[in-house]
């Protein structure tokens, strides 16, 4: 498992491939599931020209690692990689990568969703948008309504 906080641009697909090549054993895993979050140029009807992302060094990595450990306890996983940017970000740039390797796809899909959802709830980051008329702190994260529905249908445990 690796958790990386990156100040500056990154290519999530290159990161995934590099980690897979150096750390995973080919043929062992049957599934790779990944999520990439990117910055949109509009939020609540207003144009966003840039975003700055603050974090709490030490606590951020720790809380993300905790979420990954929880996922590893609930599902059968081979490995996980999380890369998250901090600092100044421009529209269309990637903000976060979550990648999960497993034998089977259900574990991968559910663990990947769990990790990004709980990262959003618990990891200490704060986004500030640059709008036409000044800066605005983002107030809250959007919720994954479907995740609860999946849980109540009895996902892989």
């Amino acid at each position, binding site marked *: 498992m690796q958790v990386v906080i990156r100040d500056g641009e990154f290519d999530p697909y290159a990161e995934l491939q590099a980690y897979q090549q150096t750390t995973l054993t080919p043929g062992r895993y049957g599934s790779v599931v990944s999520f990439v979050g990117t910055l949109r140029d509009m939020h609540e009807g207003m144009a966003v020209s840039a975003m700055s992302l603050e974090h709490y060094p030490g*606590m951020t990595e720790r809380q993300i690692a905790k979420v990954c450990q929880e996922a590893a306890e609930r599902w059968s996983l081979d490995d996980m990689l999380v890369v*998250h940017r901090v600092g100044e970000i421009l529209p269309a740039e990637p903000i976060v990568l979550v990648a999960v390797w497993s034998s089977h796809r259900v574990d991968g899909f559910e663990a990947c969703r769990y990790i990004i959802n709980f*990262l959003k709830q618990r990891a*200490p980051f*704060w986004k500030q948008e640059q709008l036409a008329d000044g800066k605005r702190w983002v107030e809250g*994260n959007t919720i994954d309504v479907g995740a609860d529905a999946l849980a109540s249908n009895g996902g892989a445990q």
Partner: protein
Amino acid sequence: MKVTVRYFASLREQMGRAEDVLSVEGDVLTVAELWRGYISSQPMGQNILIAVNMEYANVDVQVHDGDEVAFFPPVTGG
């Protein structure tokens, strides 16, 4: 005892500083007592989150010498 207090994001802007290093009487006090006694006469905001030594905590958690306490608004990463 010595306690380091950190503020983040919009709360940091409100407080006008990122950090306080406080000399506190006694060996232990709760986060609530620390806020009331050493940080502000204003009540802590309703949705302010608390961490003690980088783990989430609440106002009743005890703080000891050398601890780092952080206060911050709801998180918005990912």
